[in-house]
């Protein structure tokens, strides 16, 4: 009796709630149709009225009519919004009641009625049926896919083909290019050199033949004459000058041609193109690029890397031994490219005008970003590892646009990339933790990778004699064949922490943070000699001809012969601390000390 009563109540509630649901749904539907068919906000009546008004601007009655109508329309719109909202809540409420009462109703009657039993096919038949249906389903799917394939031809291919056939329609408008009054006969590069000298001497603004629009990029021989990146051409630590000074003294001034104070401190090394020498400086407030006349030491210009979109307001936290200006710039004679610990990268022309600048994202680096730049033709490579991921970005030197951007299977590092000529092409050799890898410079494809590093990777790789060398403190020294990616030999006796190894004349040289310079056989890894010095090495050794130049942090430069015996040619005192790697030019060595920039020459 009681149950029957409850059933009745539940049933009635369900009926009422259901009716109410239907009713509200109907209202909402009506509202929807009404709004769709005649949007009050965009009513045509209003539009015609306004149009009439523009015919007879003075008609006050018409204006009044429009105002009335406009008010009504807006009211209708907002009322309908209100109706939808309220209706929605009512509907939800009613639906909840409906569902609850129906559930109660059914749970009550199911105890009385026995649910009707259907004839079920037995399990085996069910399985057979299921198999058949799945098979027919797959057949239908395949059929539909094929149908779609056959009814649809790809218009894109046909279009591309047709576009190649048709020519651009000729415009009626005559198109003209501005030409230069003077015709050029000489090669632009040589001309440029002449022009620079002329301006330096006379300062008469002779009409100058313009630079080519798309700058030409220097060839390998031109690069070798310059010192375009950290550790010289291609970043390998090998320079191509023979008449270098071997004796100097920064304290007495012997063979010091000039010495100028560094305008803004940083750990970046100088780079050289023609007569210009570039260094960077950075602190919390400013990031700057300085250009010096390398013959006189005059500051030609300075440029500030500021107002760069995405650059952080407060620079990321760095440690004092890295700072915000640790990476060295690179130059291709058309422009100089610099990166700072804020992630700001800037391209300046040789006169210091900004070509482009961008922020690559603030690096998440607990010491500070320190990987230096290197470029090849229109590509500028940025090793941009940070705590989140190993990353290499390749930018277009003309525009700063990203050509490729890859994530590597490695973590943070502080090393710099180098370019290695392998089989007539350049490979970008990049270290990381724990890999040493070669990349296709066109696409960023990883060509080979060797997992041999560990810890905090600072030294850059070296390349010479057809092998890539990579070493890191607490890890190992490996020589890798960049064609096959095979490890040729491995050693873990002499390992550098900051300073990079260098290849020279069949030997491999390492300068360590325990004040030892070591020489090994580059082909086999056999130890030739070690030489104890007084202080530790941060600066990287550089090979010039048959000489090895290496500077410790007290500023003492040791010059060895590249030989199987430790022939120390000279030890030269600078008189201040040196953390950077010197730059070399014909007959000149440029060393950036902590305070001053030195030009050394006979």
């Amino acid at each position: 009796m009681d149950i029957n009563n409850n059933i009745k109540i539940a049933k009635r509630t369900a009926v009422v709630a259901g009716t109410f649901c239907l009713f509200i749904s109907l209202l909402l539907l009506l509202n929807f149709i009404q709004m769709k068919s005649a949007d009050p906000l965009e009513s045509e009546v209003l539009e015609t009225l306004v149009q009439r008004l523009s015919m007879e601007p003075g008609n006050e009655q018409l204006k009044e009519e429009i105002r009335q109508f406009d008010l009504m329309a807006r009211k209708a719109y907002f009322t309908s919004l209100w109706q939808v909202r309220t209706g929605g809540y009512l509907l939800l409420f009613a639906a909840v009641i409906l569902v609850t009462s129906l559930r109660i109703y059914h749970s009550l009657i199911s105890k009385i009625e026995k649910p009707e039993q259907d004839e079920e096919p037995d399990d085996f038949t069910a399985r057979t049926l299921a198999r058949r249906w799945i098979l027919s389903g797959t057949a239908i799917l395949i059929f539909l896919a094929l149908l779609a394939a056959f009814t649809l031809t790809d218009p894109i291919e046909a279009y591309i083909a047709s576009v190649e056939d048709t020519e651009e329609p000729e415009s009626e408008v005559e198109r003209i290019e501005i030409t230069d009054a003077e015709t050029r006969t000489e090669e632009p590069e040589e001309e440029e050199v002449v022009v620079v000298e002329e301006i330096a001497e006379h300062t008469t603004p002779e009409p100058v033949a313009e630079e080519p629009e798309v700058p030409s990029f220097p060839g390998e021989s031109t690069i070798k004459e310059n010192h375009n990146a950290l550790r010289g051409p291609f970043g390998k630590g090998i320079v191509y000058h023979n008449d270098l000074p071997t004796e100097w003294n920064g304290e007495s001034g012997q063979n010091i041609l000039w010495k100028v104070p560094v305008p803004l401190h940083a750990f970046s090394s100088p780079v050289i193109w023609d007569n210009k020498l570039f260094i960077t400086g950075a602190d919390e407030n400013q990031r700057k690029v300085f250009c010096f006349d390398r013959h006189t030491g005059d500051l030609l210009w300075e440029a500030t890397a500021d107002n760069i979109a995405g650059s952080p307001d407060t620079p990321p936290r760095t440690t004092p031994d890295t700072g915000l200006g640790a990476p060295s710039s690179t130059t291709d004679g058309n422009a100089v490219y610099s990166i700072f610990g804020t992630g700001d990268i800037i391209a300046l022309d040789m006169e210091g005008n900004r070509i482009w600048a961008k922020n690559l994202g603030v690096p998440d680096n607990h010491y500070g970003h320190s990987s230096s730049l290197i470029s090849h033709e229109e590509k500028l490579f940025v090793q941009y590892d940070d705590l989140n991921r190993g990353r290499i970005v390749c930018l277009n030197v003309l525009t700063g646009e990203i050509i490729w951007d890859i994530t590597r299977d490695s973590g943070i590092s502080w090393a710099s990339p180098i370019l290695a000529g392998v089989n007539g092409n350049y490979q970008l050799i990049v270290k990381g933790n724990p890999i040493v890898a070669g990349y296709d410079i066109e696409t960023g494809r990883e060509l080979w990778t060797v997992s041999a590093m560990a810890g905090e990777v600072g030294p850059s790789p070296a390349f010479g004699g057809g092998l890539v060398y990579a070493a890191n403190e607490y890890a190992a020294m490996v020589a890798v064949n960049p064609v096959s990616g095979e490890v040729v030999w491995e050693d873990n006796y002499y390992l550098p922490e900051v300073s990079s190894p260098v290849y020279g004349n069949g030997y491999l040289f390492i300068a360590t943070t325990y004040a030892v310079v070591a020489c090994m056989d580059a082909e086999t890894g056999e130890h030739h000699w070690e030489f104890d010095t007084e202080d530790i090495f941060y600066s990287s050794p550089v090979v010039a001809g048959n000489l090895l130049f290496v500077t410790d942090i007290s500023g003492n430069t040791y010059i060895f012969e590249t030989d199987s015996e430790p022939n120390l040619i000279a030890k030269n005192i600078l008189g201040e601390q040196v953390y950077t790697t010197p730059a070399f030019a014909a007959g000149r060595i440029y060393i950036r000390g902590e305070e001053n920039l030195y030009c050394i020459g006979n």
Partner: protein
Amino acid sequence: MKRKWQLITIVLVLTAAVVAVIVVEFTSTLPGRRPSNPFAYDIEEFRSVDPGLIKWKEARQVSIDTGDPRAIAYYNGKIFLAAGNELQVIGSDWSRLQRKTMPAEPSCIAVADQGWIVVAMGNRLAVLDSELEILAESDLPEIEINITSVAIHNNNIYAADATGRMVLVFNSELQQVDEFRGESGVSEVHGFIVPGGHFSLAVNPENELWITNPGIHSLQNYTPSGRLRRYIQRTSFGIEGFSGCCNPVHFTFLDDGRFVTSEKGIIRIKVMSESGETESVIAPPEAFAGGTRAPAVAVDDQGNVLALDFDRKMIRIFEPI
């Protein structure tokens, strides 16, 4: 059994509804199949120009292959073009005669009868001789200055400062001798109102100094000392006047003293009589499809109009039909 079939029917109908809704929704939101804008604001009618009014045709387009173009002037057979941070002189045969790198990016150029050239670079001015030697250079005292137009009138340099909304007057040594804000006793003519950063001035063939008052869509004639002499004011959304914030953006004169005006927003170049009637249209808005900036204008010896198209990086030459 009947119940069962009822149930199956209901489920099938609902499933069909689901499928239908998805298919309809999917196909109706494909690009090009979507509904048009119910709130369309038809500014097309203001962009369309009566073809009868277009009495000029575009004869040539000269592409600028160097830096971004910034300003143009014409004097005695030569085009003076600011591109990137260079000043270039281009001859009548479209050969580049001279070029000079300026200390900053030029914003506007004026050339005077004596052949000397005034180049403004934001808040700086420079006077150059015909060999592009810098004769005088000035850093204006206030950094909050943005010179958007210069003109040479009676050996004085008039520079329109869009930030300060005033005209600065300098002598040829670039010493400031005067400034004025265009205020006058006439009640309906307000001082210079520059709501959009475009403020222009020019000297007409009768040696009168004309200055825009773009906030009230007016071209105003001033005495050299900055007293308002006469003005025309045309406010209208249509072709007959100027509209919006800051128009006209640039203007210059034809040989007979008629105005050539260049407008932003709905970009167009037109000829206005001295009394302010639109006489003809040089370039209708369609000519600048996709462009965003009002072109700078100059008039050459033959009475052709040179328009500097910033977006497409070219000089476009319009000839009267």
